[in-house]
Each structure stands twice: as structure tokens, then as C-alpha cells.
């Protein structure tokens, strides 16, 4: 494997004229202090919220450029007293929006307003367990009840709810209960999972929250089983469930000595910079809200289109996909190299100090060396008493 030359790369990179989606951190304030939060304790950033008019001016630019969707996050977006005016700005500029929230500040009034816009794709609420004793461990006392109340308010108003469960040491044994609670008791169509990653506050509390190898393996097996039991209504783009699926495929490919898959063997783990971009709470444009140290420009001072099309730092991230894993000592001799994507550049940065590096956290070889095993078979839940062999 070798790096392709730059002109060859430039021919192959196809970037839209403008981003389709933008992740907006509307505020750096939050009513909770979760012990694994990726946002807070970021040494590179000292945030200050922007006034309403600055955001509205920027939303005007987004609308003119044909941006289709804004994801309004934070901090906690419902902390903004001017949230209604900001959402009106999104709507007036012919965009749709999603929100990421802890749910605690959602009420009939603000949810009713959101429902009335007809433009909300979904509101994602974090639920980390089936009961307060589990959920509140990392998110704070009372947070479970208020999150569930928020979800039920959204459900009553027919606003699509997307629940995300972040798996950590204190809820890994509650996965089955949580799945049952979300899918059966609350009647959600689905939910997604992730795990506490070495970012932000989690770096400070890593020993107390991040999964051990044994817990990670248990979570992988349990989630595969639950996903089967609930007919695929549990999803993941990162964390134990995503890893279980990806690593089984990689192991199968290695066993069969399969040829390298397209887009594998290079740093292809992140496709975000070709379709979306992000803005920090202080108005600084960044590639992703987990790569907040890479400052590309500032809203209302720099042209979003120019940043999107011409920023050298953003283009470097896009060209990252042409860096072969064979370039890295870390990957030397790895039997999975032809099937690996190197995974998330943000985690790579926090773990190695380098964006252009595979993420050690997502390394299958390292997981195996640390005593982990790729799930080969799993058991449906005890009430079913059925053993199922996974077809390899």
C-alpha cells in the first residue's frame, strides 16, 4: 500500500459546493455535569456564548448557501433563553433542524413551539439506564426522571425522539433492562448506543467510567444478542455494538485471506468533512465538534463557503483518507490492516496527540492483545433459552 500522489487525490476528492449539514454548539452552558461529557474540560477552548443576532446572521448565510439541516447542540441547547428566536431563524432560512439534549428542560411550551414549526427532524435525548439508580450515576441526581419526562412530552407532541445510550462502567450490566425500558415501556421505535470515549471530561474520569476490556467484550456480546432479540432496533455507529460488527467482519476477512476492501487500509474512518462542518459556541468554525482545536475561521467574519471549499486544514482532513495505515509504526505487522479504517480522528488526537493517526481505542489487535475476544456466538436472553451460533 502506498500513498497516492496529491494530484491523483485531488481528482478523486469530490466535495459539495457547500455543506449539507452543520453541527452548531449553541451554548457552552449545561444544566448537568456528566462525568464522561466530551464537551467540557476541553483544554484548547475557552467558550463564550454568542448573542442571538450573531447566530441569526449566520443562519442567513447558511440558508443562502442551501444548507439543509442544522443540528443544535451545546452544552444544552434548551439553556438558551432565545432558543425560540434561534429556531425561528432556522425556519425562516428554509432549513430543518435536529437537537441534542439531556431532556431535562423540555416542557409542553418549548416542545409545542418546536412541533409547530414542522421542521424538526428529531430531538436526541440521552438515556443511560433503565432507572434513576443507574442513569443518574454519571449524569446527576434527578436527571433520569427529567429526561424521561422530556421524552414523554416529545412523544405526546409527535416530535421524533432519538435516544442515545452511552455505555460506561456503571450501566454496562443494565443493557438488557435499558433496552426493554426504551423499546417496550417507552415504546420507542429504536435507540442507538455508544460508549464513553476519551474526550473532554471523560479524560479526567477515564478510570471510573470507561469500559475495561472485559466490560467491552460483555457489552459487545450483550448488544449483539439484544439487537437480535429486538429485530435490529438497536443501532450504533461507534462503541461496542459497532465494534462487534466491524471486528467480526474483519476477523472473517482475515480468516479467509480476503482481498482488501474498498476504503480499507487507509485512514478512512471519518467521512464527515465531505458533507458537514461544525461551529463552536463561540462562533469558531471547526471540522467537527470533537475536533474543536482545529480552527478554520469565524462565523460572520469568514465566508462559510470559502472555508468549506478552501480551508487547508479541512482539506488536510479530507485527504486523510489517502494516508495508508502501513505508514504507521502502530499498525506494523497487523493482520487486520487491509480491513481497517483507522477510525475516529478525534479520539486519535486525544490519545496520541495526532489527528493523522489511527485511533488506538478502536484497534482490534490491541483489544485482542489485552485479552479481549471477538464475539463468535451469543445467547438470546435467558427467558428465551436459545443458543444461536453466529454465521461466520
Amino acid at each position: 500500500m502506498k500513498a497516492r500522489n496529491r494530484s491523483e487525490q485531488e481528482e478523486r476528492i469530490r466535495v459539495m459546493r457547500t455543506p449539507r449539514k452543520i453541527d452548531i454548539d449553541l451554548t457552552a452552558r449545561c444544566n448537568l455535569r456528566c462525568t464522561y461529557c466530551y464537551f467540557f474540560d476541553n483544554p484548547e477552548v475557552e467558550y463564550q456564548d454568542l448573542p442571538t443576532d450573531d447566530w441569526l446572521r449566520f443562519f442567513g448565510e447558511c440558508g443562502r448557501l442551501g444548507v439543509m439541516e442544522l443540528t443544535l447542540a451545546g452544552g444544552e441547547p434548551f439553556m438558551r433563553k432565545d432558543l425560540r428566536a434561534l429556531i425561528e431563524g432556522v425556519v425562516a432560512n428554509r432549513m430543518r433542524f435536529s437537537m441534542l439534549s439531556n431532556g431535562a428542560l423540555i416542557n409542553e411550551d418549548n416542545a409545542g413551539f418546536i412541533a409547530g414549526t414542522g421542521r424538526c427532524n428529531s430531538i436526541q435525548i440521552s438515556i443511560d439506564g433503565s432507572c434513576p439508580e443507574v442513569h443518574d450515576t454519571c449524569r446527576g441526581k434527578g436527571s433520569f426522571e427529567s429526561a424521561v419526562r422530556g421524552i414523554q412530552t416529545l412523544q405526546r407532541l409527535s416530535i421524533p425522539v432519538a435516544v442515545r445510550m452511552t455505555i460506561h462502567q456503571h450501566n454496562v450490566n443494565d443493557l438488557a433492562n435499558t433496552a426493554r425500558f426504551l423499546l417496550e415501556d417507552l415504546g420507542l421505535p429504536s435507540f442507538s448506543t455508544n460508549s464513553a470515549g476519551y474526550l473532554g471530561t471523560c479524560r479526567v474520569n477515564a478510570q471510573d467510567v470507561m469500559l475495561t476490556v472485559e466490560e467491552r467484550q460483555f457489552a459487545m456480546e450483550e448488544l449483539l444478542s439484544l439487537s437480535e432479540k429486538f429485530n435490529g432496533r438497536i443501532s450504533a455507529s461507534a462503541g461496542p455494538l459497532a465494534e462487534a460488527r466491524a471486528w467480526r467482519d474483519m476477523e472473517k476477512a482475515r480468516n479467509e485471506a480476503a482481498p482488501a476492501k474498498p476504503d480499507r487500509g487507509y485512514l478512512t474512518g471519518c467521512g464527515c468533512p465531505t458533507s458537514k462542518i461544525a461551529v463552536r459556541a463561540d462562533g469558531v468554525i471547526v471540522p467537527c465538534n470533537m475536533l474543536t482545536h482545529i480552527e478554520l475561521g469565524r462565523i460572520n467574519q469568514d465566508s462559510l463557503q470559502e472555508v468549506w471549499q478552501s480551508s487547508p486544514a479541512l482539506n488536510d482532513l479530507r485527504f486523510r483518507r489517502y494516508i495508508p495505515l502501513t505508514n504507521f509504526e502502530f499498525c506494523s505487522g497487523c493482520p487486520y490492516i487491509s480491513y481497517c479504517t483507522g477510525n475516529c480522528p478525534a479520539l486519535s488526537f486525544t490519545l496520541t496527540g495526532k489527528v493523522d493517526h489511527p485511533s488506538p481505542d478502536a484497534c482490534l489487535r490491541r483489544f485482542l492483545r489485552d485479552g479481549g475476544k471477538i464475539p463468535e456466538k451469543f445467547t438470546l436472553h435467558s427467558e428465551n433459552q436459545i443458543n444461536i451460533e453466529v454465521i461466520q
Partner: protein
Amino acid sequence: MIELNKNRPIANPIAVLREEFDEWGVLFNPDTADAVGINPVGIAIWKLMDGEHDLEQIQAEIQDQFAEVPEAAGEEISAFINDLDERGFIGYEVESMDQ
């Protein structure tokens, strides 16, 4: 009874045209979240649907702007406009309203 001037289509002002790669684009209706990919000819037609151009004029403009436009272009343009009409991407001026 409302009578619409079906000969002069008007692009729905709420719809957004995103020009993306190689002159291709996406028409997006933020109210319905409906999106449809369109080719360069489709983009040109979209831009001509201003209520000023009738179907004949749109076809003539397309023949001016693009090389090797087939003879059946008029039918294809009408079919394209009808499709957008059904999806709610265009509207028409009201010609008359009988009580």
C-alpha cells in the same frame, strides 16, 4: 372555481436548490423534508420557472443553453415539471376565480 395557469410554472419559493457536484443538484423542500436529485438540465429548468416563462419559452431556452437537445425534449420537460408538481415543488398563478 379556481383556474390555474398551468402553462407558466413557478418554483415553490420555500424549496431550496443546492448545486452540488458537476453541475448536478438537489431540490429540497424543508417543510416536507422531500429531496430530489436533478441534473444540469433540471437545474436550468428550475431556474426558468419564474412565472414569466411559459413551457414553450422554457424549452427554447433549454435548446439554447444545451447542445444536442433531442426533439422529444418538450415532452421530457413537461414530464419533469409534472413530477415536480406532484411532489409539491412548484405552483401556478391563479388565472381566474369563478364564484
